[in-house]
């Protein structure tokens, strides 16, 4: 399994494009997407959309999509946005 990619602490709108580029690159290479969410202190909708989009794309390509060790802030924001189970449910 590939090394997990550390998600940045701040996943705001400004972080969305780099995150999208990274995940698209992994998908293009048919690599599993394994992310570490332990450092995340802030999650915005733009990054949430990117994560959801990447998860859907990984699922359709039968690739792994996992966010390991989600921080409390990440879990809370994802739960609050009604997608905690979707994001942290294990492999896509």
């Amino acid at each position, binding site marked *: 399994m590939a090394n997990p990619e550390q998600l940045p602490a701040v996943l705001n709108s400004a972080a969305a494009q780099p995150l999208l580029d990274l995940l698209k690159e992994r998908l293009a290479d048919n690599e599993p997407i394994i992310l570490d969410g332990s450092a995340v202190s802030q999650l915005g*909708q*733009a990054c949430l*959309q990117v994560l959801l989009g990447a998860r859907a794309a990984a699922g359709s390509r039968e690739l792994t999509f996992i966010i390991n060790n989600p921080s409390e802030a990440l879990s809370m924001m994802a739960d609050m946005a009604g997608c905690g189970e979707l994001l942290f449910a294990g492999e896509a």
Partner: protein
Amino acid sequence: MDLDAIQQMFFQESEEGLQALESCFGLCREGADDAETINTIFRAVHSIKGGAGAFGHEHLQAFAHHYEGVLDQLRSGTLTMTPALLDVLLAAFDILTDHVAAARGERSTPDDNAVLAALAGAGGEQHAAPAESVAPAASVAPADDFDALLGLLEPSPAAPAPQDDFDALLSLLEPAAAPEAAPRWQISVRPGGDAFANGGEPLLLLRELSRMGATNVALEEPGLPPIEELDVQRSYLGWSLEMPSDVSKDDIEAVFEFVDGWQLQVHQEATSSLAETAALAESGSVPEPVGVEAAPVIPLPIAPAQAASAPAPVASKPAPASAPAGEGAAAAASATIRVELDKLDRLVNLVGELVITQAMLAQRLSEHGLAGNSELTSLENLTRELQESAMSIRAQPMKTVFNRVPRIIRELEADTGKRVRLQLDGEMTEVDKTVVERIGEPLTHLIRNAVDHGIESPEERLAAGKSEDGMLRVGAEQRSGRIVITVADDGRGIDRARVRAKAVERGIVASDAMLSDEEIDNLIFAPGFSTAEKVSNISGRGVGMDVVRRNVQALGGRIGVSSRFGSGASFTLSLPLTLAVLDGMIVKVGEQTFVVPLGNIVESLRAQPGQLNHLADDAAILDVRGAQLPVLPIGALLGIPAQADPDSTVMIVVDTDAGQAVIMVDTIEDQRQVVVKSLEANYRAIPGVSGATILGDGRVALILDVEGVLTQARRRQAIAA
């Protein structure tokens, strides 16, 4: 509209909310804490909380959240207003004001720990009491608290348990009994596609809903495109969720008050059946609000009696899902409109230009023998009416200034240990916005001075045969085209002997100077004068009163004081209603035209033989019915060749802060309203001249600053001496 502009709107509305709070708390202090007043307070705090959440002002939002919790208990009747609670709410209001200022970047984040603890205490006290008299609702009974569960079996007046019916007894355990009566809000929300523009963050609003108790939050992502087509600048998601029925629709919609282009539906539907709800609760699958802070105050659940009186099932009166959002708000919005001040100033300026042009036209027609025709008169009337209307748009009630006074008093009471009863009069008196903005500082200083120096301590007052509470009256009224603001206290008044002694000690007056009572009272406005036994951090270091006077003069106003030793003092500020137009007398000095403000003029006369006494080259005294008034030769003072023959000049008696004086001019031409143009903005400040105007014939006329001219004359005399 960009995010900054929307945030500014939030700040403006916060200010209005804070003003409303101050007014409502004023009513509460008078014992008028009725349901409407409490509701208004709650709504204002809630609105501030909602906006703070939308813009990420977390400290403000968190504090407002706790504050709102106690207010919610107050409005639901589970907490009753007491003097002690009012004190806590007022202290919280002050901290809320500071938090708003901090959010605006005007100060640092206030330390709110003590007030939060006080709020928690206030809420906690009430929390315990009603719990004994009202059977707690099952929905909040901790599932693992057997004692609490047993408590549910105890009959209560609201929900008596049939003694023989075990099934009915068991039914009390069903947690959804109370909530079922009130249908929950069903909300569908979808941010606009450009919701991220200018830093917008929809999840902050979702978080606010979560804090308000949102449950069953479900993500709607059918619009999310494949990742290859995903544009990070666009919003694709939407949510459906439920809100408790005790949250009002207005409060829900208020969360979205500052966003544009969102799709929002808020409606009520019949709740799921009792069995379904109970089953959900039992299985633990009813989602808990996420992200709700550990509030020190836990709102009481709806008591059974209240639940029973909750709205009838929705089927009987369904809320139309397609009802326009915020009908009440829309109706209120239609009555007012926000306009940027710059636009308003431009309008006022243009109207001023129109007034000048109209005067020029009148002058030109007059030169061609066409003066006095009806069309010109109509134009003149319309122009004047238009100008008054434009000026009235800028007018604001003094209430915006007076609203700050109660807090100042509260802080002074806390700092000095004195007790002050405040009376505010004339709050709705309207005055130009510029005056409102600039009068706050001098007024604050006068109030601080009155409490610090004027009003005695409770012990001193009792010893003097007065009530323990000092009385401070702050009033505003329109009088003779000016606004008169009064700050009067019933304190010790001005000790003239002490003032005089201090003035002599500081070299402000000679020890043998003959001074009237009025002149002694006016010594307190001398620079650096202070009679305080010890320097306090309240009234400053004795530099205040002369600054007050200068600030008032800068507004074209005057300040006066009257006092009775032992009974109190009264300061009176007389200010022009507006700084944009001025009624003036047009006079000529040599080839120059000047405007003398009508507000300064007492009378005009020609000097009779023997009435004018020359003292030196420039100095003269005019005997006006026995009063010897100094003559100010404008020509000589401003370096303009003018009539020197007293028989050919006109004497205008003017009123100044330092008493009456006489302005000597060549001729009086006219009396009219003129549009004031700033010299500082268009040229530079000139001593003795407060501004300029353009006359009907296109000439520029300088507006005399009578006080400044007198000061200049005295300075010249002092130098000559």
